[in-house]
């Protein structure tokens, strides 16, 4: 009996202690923690793909409410277009959206929330920090494979910072991973120049590591290749007024022979032959021969643009500016068969002022909501040509610049009325021409504001009037003078730091214009 009691007690203690162990287990039962992650090459690959998909994250919170956090693709559009002259607010636009068009942005404006960008930056930082450890854990993971992944993370991080620096000016430069709450430390802003130096250093490193092809078209357009790095570098050099370097980067892409312009229109004597599938090849389907880097939206991952642009829903937020067709593309009143292929039914549906690029399934048919997966194009070949043109013009080669502009114009059958035929030696006239051509070529592609700002700020804001004139055009008439006077303060060209960030990171200092 006593023996039995001892056995029983022994069993109970054993059972109790083992259950105790489980009870005291601190590791989560339903997830993977970082000590268990970063073991195999598959996990590294998953993290890289995670970086790309983080750029396609959805918005959260209700639009027009204070807690709204826009999606990144939405911000690409809003930051690049809303303050410029190609778009206008629609009936359902929020106060925050309207404030952008009237130069009335406040630190509470939800469009100043940079959270999606720093989240993706943290994914990149984590990969850059942890992926090298996997080399020791997984013998089948090669150094070459690691280099490729590192180049992707470096480039995406540079792209994020490039957007931030152009939008906010000085921003915090965070280069190490935030893995847990212990890593959260307030950090100060770095200057625009410091951030840009970091971007260039990262990209140069990425260029030496990146592949020229991932093996298939979809991955080549949707993931970072060496040509993506070159394109981004060219853009950064153009922003930092380094023209020789910009031309060199453009030439790397041009000379690769892997990209070209999708044929739009060909003039055959008196008649013009249009490529009917131009819109679908380049925009509706995406991943064309012209594309360099595109966000790969698909049926499984829809883009946010349907609710923003589609004329079929009552709550669309942005429409094309009312005078877009006449002012930007112009119209041949005498011959309707002579039109700029980039205008009506490509960039815009003129009759309904719809931003067509992202909601058109074809030149004539609207997408339905379940088909809303037009890609967001970061860079394409036409951009390389026009960036090179801009750099050539700045370095004194006006004729070389014009040749490239005409190459882009020709493929689209740009109308004669939009050709001011500037003299190659007239640098400002060629600048204006390139800027206008970019407005046509990249209409609604999130580039217009940055293009105008880049040209305006060159040589210590020598051409600020370009920006002031644009504001005179796009701001409501009863605020025009105020908006112009605001824009004379160069700090107003950058967005305020979002109030939430200021409250949580006490080291941040608000842009002086917004005090």
């Amino acid at each position, binding site marked *: 009996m006593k023996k039995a009691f001892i056995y029983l007690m022994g069993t109970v203690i054993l059972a109790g202690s083992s259950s105790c162990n489980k009870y005291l287990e601190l590791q989560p039962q339903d997830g993977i923690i970082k000590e268990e992650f970063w073991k195999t090459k598959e996990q590294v690959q998953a993290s890289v793909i995670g970086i790309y998909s983080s750029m396609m994250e959805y918005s959260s919170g209700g639009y027009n409410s204070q807690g709204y956090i826009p999606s990144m693709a939405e911000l690409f559009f809003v930051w690049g277009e809303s303050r410029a002259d190609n778009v206008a607010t629609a009936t359902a636009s929020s106060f925050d959206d309207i404030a952008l068009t009237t130069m009335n942005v406040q630190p509470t404006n939800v469009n100043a929330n940079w959270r999606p960008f720093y989240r993706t930056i943290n994914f990149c930082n984590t990969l850059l920090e942890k992926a090298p450890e996997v080399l020791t854990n997984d013998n089948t993971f090669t150094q070459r494979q690691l280099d490729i992944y590192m180049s992707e993370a470096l480039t995406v991080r540079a792209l994020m910072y490039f957007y931030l620096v152009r939008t906010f000016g000085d921003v915090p430069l965070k280069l190490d991973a935030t893995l847990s709450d212990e890593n959260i430390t307030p950090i100060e802003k770095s200057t625009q120049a410091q951030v840009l130096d970091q971007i260039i250093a990262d990209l140069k490193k990425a260029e030496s590591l990146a592949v020229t092809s991932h093996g298939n078209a979809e991955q080549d357009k949707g993931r970072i290749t060496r040509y993506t790095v070159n394109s981004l570098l060219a853009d950064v050099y153009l922003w930092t007024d380094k023209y020789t370097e910009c031309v060199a980067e453009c030439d790397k892409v041009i000379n690769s022979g892997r990209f070209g312009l999708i044929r739009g229109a060909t003039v055959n004597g008196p008649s013009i032959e249009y490529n009917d599938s131009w819109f679908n090849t380049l925009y509706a389907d995406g991943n064309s021969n012209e594309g360099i880097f595109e966000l790969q939206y698909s049926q499984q991952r829809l883009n946010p643009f349907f609710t923003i642009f589609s004329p079929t829903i*009552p709550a669309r937020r942005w429409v094309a500016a009312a005078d877009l067709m006449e002012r930007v593309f112009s*119209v041949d009143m005498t011959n309707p068969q002579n*039109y700029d292929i980039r205008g009506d039914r490509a960039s815009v549906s*003129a*009759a309904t002022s719809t931003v067509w690029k992202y909601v058109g399934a074809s030149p004539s048919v609207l997408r339905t909501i379940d088909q809303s997966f037009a890609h967001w194009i970061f860079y394409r070949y036409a951009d390389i040509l026009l960036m090179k043109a801009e750099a050539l013009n700045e370095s004194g080669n006006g004729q070389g610049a014009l040749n490239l502009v005409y190459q882009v114009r020709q493929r689209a059958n740009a109308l004669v009325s939009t050709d001011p035929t500037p003299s190659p030696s007239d640098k400002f006239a060629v600048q204006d021409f390139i800027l206008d051509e970019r407005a046509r070529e990249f209409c609604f592609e999130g580039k217009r504001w940055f293009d105008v700002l880049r040209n305006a700020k060159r040589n210590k804001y020598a051409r600020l009037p370009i920006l002031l004139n644009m504001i005179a055009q796009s701001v409501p008439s*009863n605020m*025009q003078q*105020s908006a112009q006077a605001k824009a*004379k303060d160069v700090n107003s060209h950058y967005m305020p730091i979002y109030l939430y960030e200021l409250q949580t990171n006490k080291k941040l200092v608000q842009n002086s214009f917004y005090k």
Partner: protein
Amino acid sequence: MSRKIIVSVLAFAMVAGLVTMNACRKIELVETTTADVNIVGWLDKQPDSFSLFRQILERTGTAPFLNAYGAYTCFAPVNSGVKTYLTKIGAASVDAADLNTLKDMVRLHLLEDTVYTNSFTDGKLPVITMFGQFLVTSVANVGGASSYQINRQALVRNSNIRTGNGIIHVIDQVMTPAVKTIAQQLEANANYSVFVQAMKETGYFDKLNVVDPNLANRWITVLAESNKALADNGFANYASLKAKYSKTGNPRLATDSLNMYVAYHITSGLKFLGDIITQTTHETMLPQEVISIRLVEQDILINEDEFNGVIEKGVRINRPGSDNAATNGVWHEAAGHYMVKFRKPTALFWDVSAFEEIKKLPAFYKKANYNFTRATEADKPIKDHYWGWGSLAGTNVLSYTYSTSSSITNFACNNDINMLPLGLPSRPVWWEMKTPPVIKGKYKVWICYRAQKQSSSSNQLCQVEVNGQLMQRTMNFTENRPAGTDAELEAIGWKRYIENTTNVFAARQVGVIEFKTTQQQTIRITPLVGTQNNNNLDMIHFIPIDENQILPRFRPDGSMIYF
């Protein structure tokens, strides 16, 4: 044993009592609903910046209500600004200053509503100050930094500070109210001596020199012509201006052209430039005469209008010399000379399907059909054509219909018509259009349409209103033109407006309207009986009543014929 228990229980109870009593004392009940300070409280927290303004609030008795419940906007000047102000009014300290002057000053800095910087425009604030003058906002760029400027006197240093009972904008200077009337300000300015003399001789000087105690009638806006503007237009002095216009010899008469000249430069209401450009026309003191306003690039132009395809050059408003606030209004500087134009009533033969939005589509305008669809009630695809939302969403489509062969448009002017479904219960409930400018005068109104029945039983009886005034006759989109000679038809309110004699193209005279002002007029067609889709509107004619109502007629190519 039991004694021990009792002791320990007692001891425990005492300790527990002590603990709970302590805890009782420690509880601090929050009796306020918020920790936010009110406007005065916020100023109190920063005595370095606002001690003087705070003193003024105390002395003027404003502090108590600014510390109570409400919704105010306070423009709070910092100490340095108050010091400058005190020096300006010759007071050594706040206590030494005249109380009434201080009261007026404080009331100019307070609004009885919350106004954030996002409602600042180039014009006045939406809410009047407690002093009874509006503040005007702008943005000034000083040394590369831009900031809001209030009343052209003070720069905003810090804005949109929320407090419990309103918001504060910190300003660097004290603002002072205007003390002179428009008339006095102009008189004091030597550059306007000719215009002022014209004002005096026509009697308007006295009218512009009073401050009406009734806010509704107080405000006046004057567009003054400077001596230079007049000299550039050949009026070197007042005598030459009078010689040109004053034909009756008595400029005080309303019928004298000099009197009209001055009256035409005055409009009622307080209109800063930011307010002027939000409206296309403004009525002047000259009865039924308006000035039109257009913004071209950055220039505000008066009377730059297009009549019958000819653009008449307008006069620019000089921005730097404008937005001068006075006690009874505001005045601006017109950079040129302008005078009311007397135009004879002229017929308008309006092809309703030649609107801007379709002309922008060269592939469709005079080429093919095009549907302008309103997906939602808020949409407005065509600026000058609008309709009351039809509950059946699919009927909210205005079809631009063009064809040279279809029997609907083959004889129509320019071969095109506008078609819009109409009628209760589910189709659009009215159809409203803005005409091109029609010169004031008396006109007969003709609705020219291509009659069509959607089905054999369709009916579409409509009434027509012009500028809200109901026309004497109804019209019916399903009714053909009756037979008869031109004279017989005109007698019963019909005519043939196209070259071809088919009776499906009909023009119905719906009535006579007198336009009081020359401007874009509004015409609205409201269905009374029946409902159908095929309401084909081709043209609307406004023909002066004393002119030939039958001719000209229109060819499919748009040209006119006079037989």
